[in-house]
């Protein structure tokens, strides 16, 4: 436990008495100890911080310190957002014929936007089914200008409780949706 210790040659690994797995020290500059009396064992300047998290990757079955990079929203996993089901008129079939999607251009991104509706059974005592229609978009540009853009999806689907959603596959680019509008017509016909 005495004073001056390992040379500052790239991260000491002091003590340890020949522990298994001690890696070879690479050369390189590390910060020096300021007082000059007791020098630090390795270390960093403290100039760059990141959000890190201990992680076990079960694909490679190895342990990592995973890095979360907030300057890149091209997530490696799929992203999904469901909006509420809409009782445009409770108990009535309505149709949806257009979606408006407002987004911020963070770069090229592919995603789909669609609507799910509940289609009642012709036999009112039997449950109906859910049906989906969606439209694929490829939006944005290589130059991420961070401006708002608007695209439209023309689709026609009829049923009860229409529910809009957006879905982006893994690694499909950075998605940033700021507003979605669902447009359609309501039917006055009584189901019962």
């Amino acid at each position: 436990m005495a004073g001056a210790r390992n040379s500052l040659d790239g991260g000491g690994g002091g003590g340890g008495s020949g522990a298994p797995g001690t890696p070879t020290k690479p050369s390189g500059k590390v910060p020096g100890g300021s007082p000059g009396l007791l020098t630090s064992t390795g270390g960093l300047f403290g100039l760059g911080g990141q959000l890190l998290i201990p992680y076990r990757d079960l694909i490679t079955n190895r342990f990592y310190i995973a890095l979360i990079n907030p300057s890149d929203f091209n997530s490696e996993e799929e992203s999904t957002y469901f909006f509420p089901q809409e009782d445009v008129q409770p108990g009535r079939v309505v149709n949806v014929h257009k979606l408006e999607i407002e987004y911020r251009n963070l770069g090229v991104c592919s995603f789909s936007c669609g609507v799910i509706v509940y289609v009642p059974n012709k036999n009112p005592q039997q449950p109906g089914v859910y049906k989906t229609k969606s439209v694929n978009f490829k939006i944005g540009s290589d130059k991420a200008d961070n401006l708002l853009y608007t695209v439209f999806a023309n689709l026609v689907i009829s049923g009860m409780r229409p529910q809009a959603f957006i879905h982006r596959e893994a690694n499909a680019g950075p998605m940033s949706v700021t507003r979605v509008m669902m447009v359609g017509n309501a039917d006055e016909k009584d189901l019962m």
Partner: protein
Amino acid sequence: MAANSYWEKVYQGPWKGIVNHLPENMISSQESPFLNNVILKNGEIRSNPRQSLGIKGPVNDNSNIALINSFLDANNVVHTVIITQLGLWQLNPNWPKYPDKAWNLVAPFSVQPGSVTPSAYQTFLNTFYWTNGGPNLFSWDGITSVGSVTTVKRSTFYIQGAEVTASVGGVVYRFVANNFGKTATVAPVFNATLASQTVDGGVTFINNGKPIVQDGFKNVAVVDATNGYTAGAFFLGELGFRLIMLNTVESTGSYPQRVRWTPSGYPSIWDPNVNIGAGFSDEIDVPDGITGFLTIGRVGFIFRVNGITELTQTGNGLNPFDFNHLWASDRGIGNIYSYTIAGYGPIGIFISNDEIYQLSLGGFERIGATSRDLVLNDLARATSTPVATIYPYYQKNYVYTTYMLTIPFGDSSIVWRYSIEDRHWTRSIKPKGIYTGRANFVQIA
């Protein structure tokens, strides 16, 4: 509504996250019945920030990484360290160039393999302390090498808290430096009496009892210096310039209701017979064990399964803490998942049987709210230990104070994030991967 009447529905932020307090056709337009892997900052539905594998773990030590942390040593040098089952590693500054040699082993645990329990840690007096449910509290100051305590050397500088051994009449004793200084050229006669002082040049050493058996790290917490008994714990904290261990595991057994503390400013001394400022208290008047610890301002909060005990400072050096059970009932608000407590400045978050709470200077606040059942349902299905942290920002130009709760589920992880700013919950699934420790904002260069 007239036949074939036109209708439109607009969805725009601020978003309120995922909810299940009402059926999906009865929630507001800003709420979502289901979402995955999005971040709802600034009224946008964004795909989450990308997670990369970042820094490889030690190549020759493919074992569980229990924590990552950075600390500043007494030379103003930053050390980024991880704890694996093998031992303590620190990040090599040249890791981008040598990714396979990113980590240098500081020292291994004396008993292999080490624990996989998420480690509790605390930086105190420029020294990194950690403990992980075993009978040891470990430390590294980033300056001296770790390893067995060595014999005191002549004309050598020692920092405050440094530990050495010295022989008195053929019997070896353990001494703790009481201040920073340089030892004399000629050895003094060391005092063999427990807690006595010996002046050696510019250093005053305190007798800390018999040497304890060790070979890996410094065993800091010698709670019975006469017999060489040590202690570790499941939880570690600091209050009133004292290091505090809670739910201790000692050489003589486990004490889930015990709180131990050091004298003010002396984190190497834990035996009250060495310094009367050290001490311990057993919370045996409550029915449950300690499951976590948080400090907010000048107050500590000791969490139990069914209760919370407030720890306030008395200002009395001999009896430094007052223990006040906020409630001591059989059933009550407490913390039920030990490693899901997280704190950030004046904010703490913990999970009770009935709700998720945010604790602040203003009191307790329910934050599970409309998402509570979903979070608690995932926690109930956890296949390993859930862990949580609060981080104020993703990076310094992307501030978003978030409580991040990771729940292992089979070969995947469920990640819940609570935006403390926007007060909503989002959920992500990370397939084929398990988070093994708390996220932390650390230095990498």
